[in-house]
C-alpha cells in the first residue's frame, strides 16, 4: 500500500520523507491485492488467499480453553480489592516480576531446559519490532552496519535501519548449501563494510530462519560465535520462531551454546523473542530482549519506556505462562500441529512437481520456482509472481523482497488458515502447474 509522501511546504524530518520504512516494496503490493479481494470460504471462494502472513492460527483453541478455565488471568478476575487499580497504575519499566519470570521459564521450556534464563535479564518491549530497533540503537551509531544473512525478513529494513540510521550489509547465502551461513560469506560481508569505511557492529541472525523455515545448525552457530568474537562485535539472535520448531530437538539456541561454555564471551550476545508467533498473539505486542550484557540490559530497560507492554496484557500472560502444565502441553501440541501442516503443504507441492527447501520450523516453507523463470533475474521472478498473485490469486512472498540473491524462491505461509483453505490453495497451485506444463508441451511441440 504505497503511500506517497510529497515534499510539504514545511519540511518534515529526513527520516519522515525517506522510504526506508519499506512500504513501497512489492512485498506490500501483495497485501493490497488481498485487501481488495480477500478469500472467504463461503462468501468469496475465488478471492486471494493470504499466504504472505506469517501468523500462527493453529493453536488458539488451547489458549481459549485455558482462559475459560482460569478467569483469574483477566483483570476482571476475582482478585483482591484494588487489583485493577494496581495493575492500571503499574508502569515500571522493569515490568511485572511475575511476567518476566513466566517469560524466562517459557523460553527455558522451549529449549527443553538446555538453557536457563534469568528473569532479571528479560527486558520487555512492545513486540519484536521494537526489540530489534531498540537493540540497534544501543549497539550501533548512525552510519554503522549490521551484517544480516540473506534471505531475511523484509521488515528488518525498517526495524533496523529506518530511524536508527544504521545500514544492513547482507551475508549472501544460496541454495548450493541450503542457504547456510558460511565463514566465507561472513568474511566477505565484513570486507564489504571495510571497503566502504563502514563500521560493523553486529551480526544479526534469525534462528529458526524467516523465510527459510529452517533452524541453524549447531556448528554454524559456533562458527558465527567464533567470528563475532574474533571481530569483537555483537551477535543478535532473533529467536522469535523458537517455539515453532517442529521437533524439540531440532532447535539449538545460541543460549545453549553459551551455557555449555560457561558464558565465556557472552557479553556480546543478545536474544530477541516475542509471543507473536509461538503463541499466535501478535496483537498483544509482547517482545523481549534477553541480554548477557549488564549495560545493555540497563540501557534497554530505560529505552523500553518508549515501548512498554500494557500492564493488562502482562498480567494475563503472567498467569498463563506460569502455568507449567499449560505451557508444556501447548509447546508440544503446537509443534505437532505445525509439523502436520508443513507435511501437508510439502506433500501437496511435491505432487505438483514443486520442490521446497527442507524445513523444520516456522510458519512457512521456502518454495523453489526457479525452474519456471523465463529469466533467472529479479525481474523474471516478479514476472512469475504477478500471475501467481493476480491469476492464481495466492499472495505469496517473492524472494527478492527478502533480499534473496538467488531469484525464483518464494515464501509460502501455511499456519494462518484452516486446513480446508490450504487444500484450496494447493489445488490452485496444482492447476497452475498443470497449465504451465501443458503450455510448455505445446510450445515444445510447435518448434
Amino acid at each position, binding site marked *: 500500500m504505497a503511500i506517497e509522501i510529497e515534499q510539504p511546504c*514545511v519540511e518534515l524530518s529526513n527520516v519522515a520523507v525517506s522510504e526506508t520504512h519499506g512500504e513501497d516494496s512489492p512485498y506490500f503490493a501483495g497485501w493490497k491485492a488481498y485487501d481488495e479481494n480477500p478469500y472467504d470460504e463461503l462468501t468469496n471462494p475465488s478471492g486471494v488467499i493470504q499466504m504472505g502472513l506469517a501468523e500462527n492460527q493453529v493453536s488458539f483453541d488451547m489458549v481459549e480453553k485455558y482462559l475459560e478455565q482460569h478467569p483469574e488471568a483477566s*483483570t476482571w478476575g476475582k482478585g483482591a480489592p484494588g487489583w485493577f487499580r494496581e495493575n492500571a497504575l503499574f508502569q*515500571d519499566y522493569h515490568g511485572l516480576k511475575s511476567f518476566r519470570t513466566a517469560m524466562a521459564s517459557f523460553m527455558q521450556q522451549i529449549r527443553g531446559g538446555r538453557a536457563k534464563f534469568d528473569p532479571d535479564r528479560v527486558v520487555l518491549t512492545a513486540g519484536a519490532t521494537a526489540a530489534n530497533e531498540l537493540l540497534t540503537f544501543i549497539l550501533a551509531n548512525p552510519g554503522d552496519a549490521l551484517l544480516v544473512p540473506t534471505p531475511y525478513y523484509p521488515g528488518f529494513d525498517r526495524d533496523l535501519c529506518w530511524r536508527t540510521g544504521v545500514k544492513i550489509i547482507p551475508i549472501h547465502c544460496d541454495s548450493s548449501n541450503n542457504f547456510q551461513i558460511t565463514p566465507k560469506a561472513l568474511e566477505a560481508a565484513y570486507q564489504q563494510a571495510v571497503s566502504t569505511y563502514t563500521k560493523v557492529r553486529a551480526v544479526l541472525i534469525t534462528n529458526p530462519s524467516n523465510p527459510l523455515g529452517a533452524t541453524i545448525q549447531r556448528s554454524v552457530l559456533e562458527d558465527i560465535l567464533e567470528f563475532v568474537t574474533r571481530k569483537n562485535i555483537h551477535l543478535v539472535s532473533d529467536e522469535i520462531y523458537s517455539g515453532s520448531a517442529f521437533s524439540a530437538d531440532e532447535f539449538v539456541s545460541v543460549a545453549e551454546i553459551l551455557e555449555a561454555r560457561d558464558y565465556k564471551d557472552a557479553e556480546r550476545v543478545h536474544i530477541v523473542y516475542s509471543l507473536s508467533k509461538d503463541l499466535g498473539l*501478535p*496483537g498483544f505486542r509482547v517482545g523481549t530482549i534477553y541480554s548477557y550484557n549488564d549495560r545493555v540490559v540497563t540501557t534497554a530497560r530505560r529505552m523500553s519506556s518508549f515501548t512498554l507492554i500494557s500492564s493488562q496484557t502482562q498480567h494475563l500472560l503472567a498467569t498463563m505462562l506460569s502455568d507449567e502444565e499449560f505451557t508444556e502441553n501447548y509447546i508440544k501440541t503446537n509443534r505437532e500441529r505445525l509439523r502436520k501442516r508443513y507435511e501437508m503443504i510439502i506433500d501437496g507441492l511435491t505432487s505438483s512437481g514443486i520442490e521446497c527447501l527442507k524445513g523444520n520450523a516456522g510458519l512457512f516453507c521456502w518454495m523453489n520456482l526457479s525452474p519456471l523463470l523465463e529469466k533467472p533475474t529479479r525481474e523474471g521472478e516478479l514476472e512469475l509472481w504477478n500471475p501467481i498473485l493476480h491469476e492464481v490469486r495466492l499472495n505469496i512472498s517473492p524472494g527478492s523482497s527478502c533480499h534473496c540473491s538467488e531469484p525464483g524462491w518464494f515464501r509460502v505461509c501455511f499456519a494462518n488458515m484452516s486446513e480446508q483453505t490450504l487444500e484450496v490453495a494447493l489445488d490452485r497451485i496444482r492447476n497452475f502447474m498443470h497449465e504451465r506444463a501443458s503450455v510448455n508441451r505445446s510450445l515444445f511441440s510447435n518448434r
Partner: protein
Amino acid sequence: MGLGNDQSRRLLSRMAVNDKHGENSPYFDGWKAYDRDPFHPTNNLHGVIQMGLAENQLCFDLIQEWMKNHPEASICTPEGLNQFRDVAIFQDYHGLPKFRKGVANFMSKVRGGRVKFDEDRVVMSGGATGANEVIMFCLANPGDAFLIPTPYYPAYARDLCWRTGVQIIPVHTDSSNNFQITREALETAYNKAQQDNINVKGLLITNPSNPLGTTLDRDTMKSLVSFINEKNIHLVCDEIYAATVFNKPSFVSVSEIMQEVDFCNKDLIHIVYSLSKDMGFPGFRVGIVYSYNDSVVSCARKMSSFGLVSSQTQHMLAFMLLDDDFVNKFLIESSRRLAKRHSLFTEGLEKMGVTCLPSNAGLFCWMNLRSLLEEQTVEGEMKLWRVIVNEVKLNISPGSSFSCSKAGWFRVCFANMDDETVKVALRRIKAFVGKEAEKAKNVIKRRQRSINGLRIISSSSSSKRFDESWAISPHSTHIMSPHSPIPHSPLVKVT
C-alpha cells in the same frame, strides 16, 4: 565476564553510553528515598510520602464499577471470549476502528464537545512518552531544536532528545507574571537560536501545564499560534492533562483555536495525548498522536509499529470510551473530585502561610517555598529539598528539575493518595514551616544581639542539616524509571 568496563563502553553506541536517559538527575533521588522508606498509614506512619508522582487515583471506583457491568469488554471473560481470536491476531497499525472512534469521541467530550476529532487522524503510540518521541522523529532532524517554555516536565529531555538527537531550547517564564509565556520570551529564545545557527523546527507546549497546573488562556494560545505561523515552525501541544481541569477558566485546546482563526497553516499543528492522567491508566500505555498534517499522520502511523497499544487494551477501551453515558459521568465526577482534593490541599497550605500558584488543572500544585531558602539559588533550593525529603519525609519535586529559572518552587502531587494521607502531609508541612519560622526568628534575634555587641552563641544545629553524609551522590545507581520506579504505586489508604 570477559570485557573490561572501558572496552564494554566502546562496544556500545554513543546513545547507549551518554546521560541523555536523564536518570542521573537529582529528580530521581527523591524516588530512592521513598523506595527505601515508603509511607504506610498503619505499617510505616513515619515513612516518606510520595508526592512526586503525577498519578490520578481518584476515580478507580467508577472504572471498576463499569468493568463489573461490562464483562464483554474483556476477551478473557465468558462473555467476551468469542472475540479473543480476532483481537489477539489484530496488529494492524491503524488500530481497531472502534478504539480510534472511542478516542476521538473522548477527546471531543473532554473539550466540551466544542471540537470534533477525526478518528482517521488518531495514531497510537507507546504512551505519551512514545508519542512525543515519534513527533520529534517526524518533524526534526538530529541537531534541530524545539522551543519549550519553562518550567517543563523533566523527562522531555529524554523523550524528545535521547534517540532523536533533537535539542531543547528553553523559553524562560517568570513568577512575576505567573509564569505566563510572553511573546518577548519566545522571540528572545528564537533569535538566540538563529544567532547560534541552530535550526528551530517548532514550539512544544504542555497545556494544561505540568508542573504549573494552569491552562493557557485564549489570547496566549492565539499568540502562540500566530508566532509559529509567522516563523513557519511546528506547534506541538501536549494536552495530556486536558481532562484534569477542575475549575474555571475552562480549557482552551489548540484544536479550538484552529477553528477560530483563519491564519493558521494546519500542517503545523499536532496534538499529543494519552489516557495516563485523565483516566489514571498509565500501565495501559495508551499514547496518541493527533496531527492536522496528513504526511505526519501517515509517517507517525508507520512509526507506531514500534509502540502499538495492545489489542486487548484497545478492545476494552473501545467499549469504555464509546459508552457516552459513562464518559459524561466520569468526566464530571473526576473534575469534581480533583477540585475537592485541590481545595483540601491548597487551603490547608494557605492556613500555614504557604502559597501555591493559583491553578485550575493538573494533579499537582506549584508550591512557593522561596521564603525558606537560605540562598535564592539552585543550591539553596536543593539544600531545602534534601531537608524536605529526608526530614519532613515528603518526596516533592524541586523546581530546578523542571528547569525553572527561579529557585524555590516545588511541584507537589496530591491525586495519588487518599484524603487522610493528604492531611498527614499537611501536618508535616505545618510542623516544618513552624520550625523554620522559629529558626528564622532566632537567627534574627542572634543577629540583633551581635549588632548590639554580644557574642554569638552559634548553635550548630543549623549546620547539621547540611551534613555532607546526607548529600546524595551524583553517581548513585539509579534504577528508577521517571514514570514509576516502584512496583507498586503508593496505595495509601488509611483504613
